[in-house]
Structure formats: C-alpha cells, structure tokens
C-alpha cells in the first residue's frame, strides 16, 4: 500500500482505536472469582469500590474498597496479565471495613471488588478505569 498522507492518518486512527479498546474479561478472572466464592452466587449490595474514571498513569492507580459487613474483600483487575490484585481480611480491631491502596493496571479495563459478608454471601462492585499509560511493563 502506498503510504500517502491520507493512508497514514487512517492507519494512525486505526491504531488509536485498537489501543482504546478495553481488555476483555478473561477466563483467569472467572477462575479467581470462583476460587474465592466457591461457586456461590455473587450479588449486588453492601460494597463500594472507588477508583478514578481516568488514570493517566497505570503504574499507580489509587483505589479504595469499603463494605460495612465484609470479613474479606478481594480485588481483581480483569485486564491485567494476572487478574489478582489483593485480598483484604479484616480482623476484630478493624474500625471500618475499608482500605485504600495503589494498584497497577496494564490498560483500560474493569476493576472488580468482591466482598465476603458476615452472613457468608458475596457481593460485587465493578468500576471501569480508563488508562492512558499502561503499568505492567513490556
């Protein structure tokens, strides 16, 4: 193909479009969720996941999870090479079932938090994060 100005612009546009597409939730994420819940149904409810809508730098994305009745919260990044992020277990002296940290995201994707509640049920919250510069090297 002759590389004319018009073609170059088209190519650039196509590349941008590809880069902007969110990573697909993969089988590894589903496996991680199944391992955590033991196959139990995951509902909606008492869980809050705070993440920025747009993260300029995927190397440090601040997130916060909170849930009033959780004993354990699992955080997953569905588009990372490995979806696992962290698992927070709250002990007797945890005043609030909440924690914040900074995570790495390889690209634009959904971040998922799943909480195991005191009654043994599971709830989930999802937050889409748009990443301008990815954070998993390569």
């Amino acid at each position, binding site marked *: 193909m002759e590389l004319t100005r018009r073609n170059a612009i088209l190519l650039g546009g196509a590349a941008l479009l590809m880069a902007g597409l969110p990573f697909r939730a993969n089988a590894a994420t589903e496996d991680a969720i199944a391992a955590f819940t033991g196959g139990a149904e995951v509902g909606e409810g008492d869980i809050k996941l705070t993440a920025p809508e747009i993260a300029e730098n995927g190397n440090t*994305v601040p997130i916060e999870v909170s849930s009033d009745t959780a004993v354990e919260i699992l955080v997953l990044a569905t588009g990372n090479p490995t979806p696992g992020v962290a698992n927070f277990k709250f002990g007797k*002296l*945890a*005043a609030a079932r909440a924690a914040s940290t900074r995570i790495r995201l390889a690209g634009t994707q959904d971040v998922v938090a799943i909480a195991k509640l005191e009654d043994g049920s599971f709830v989930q919250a999802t937050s889409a994060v748009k990443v301008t510069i990815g954070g998993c090297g390569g």
Partner: protein
Amino acid sequence: MASGVKPRVKVPKKASAGEAVTIKTLISHKMESGQRKDKEGNTIPRSIINRFTCDFNGENVVDVTMEPAISTNPYFEFQATVPEAGEFKFTWYDDDGSVYEETKSIAVG
C-alpha cells in the same frame, strides 16, 4: 533481592479508648511484577511483598495478601479501633523470605 526496603508508618500518638484511628503505611519496595523485560529482552523475575499484616496487642486489624498488581512502594490506609493503650505491630513479608517489622505505640488519654 530487594534493596533499600524501608517501612514507614503513620499512627496518631494518642487516642481515647475505643476510638477509631486512621493508619497509613508505606514501604519502599520496587515490587518487580514479573511482567517487565530488561534491555536484552529477558523477563525480570517477580520480586514483590506478598503479605502485609497489622496487629494491635496481638489482635489482628488487617491481613492483606498482595499480587504483582500492587504498585511500587505499597501503600495502605485503613482504620483501627484502639480499646486500650498498646502497640501496633506491622509486618511485611517479602518474596525472598525477608520479613520487615515496624512497631508504633499509642497512648490512651
């Protein structure tokens, strides 16, 4: 091997009994994810801190297991109840087997 690992913790010096205090922790660690490659194209092996715990007088506050997706210099912020005067103990477990500890005492009054 991780070098230059230094834990830093922010805990209030005083609290009233039963009060919830906010704790901020940071440990300088390069948290090599195992995904990056060096100049020759070889994968740099994973080297991260894989677990962090906080206890107060032997009672657990939080226990966090970490994956490579935690950022360089892992930072955590959470809240703890202070039932009596005592000591917070923070422990970080490194992939290479090292364990880093930090303690902070808190007075009740």
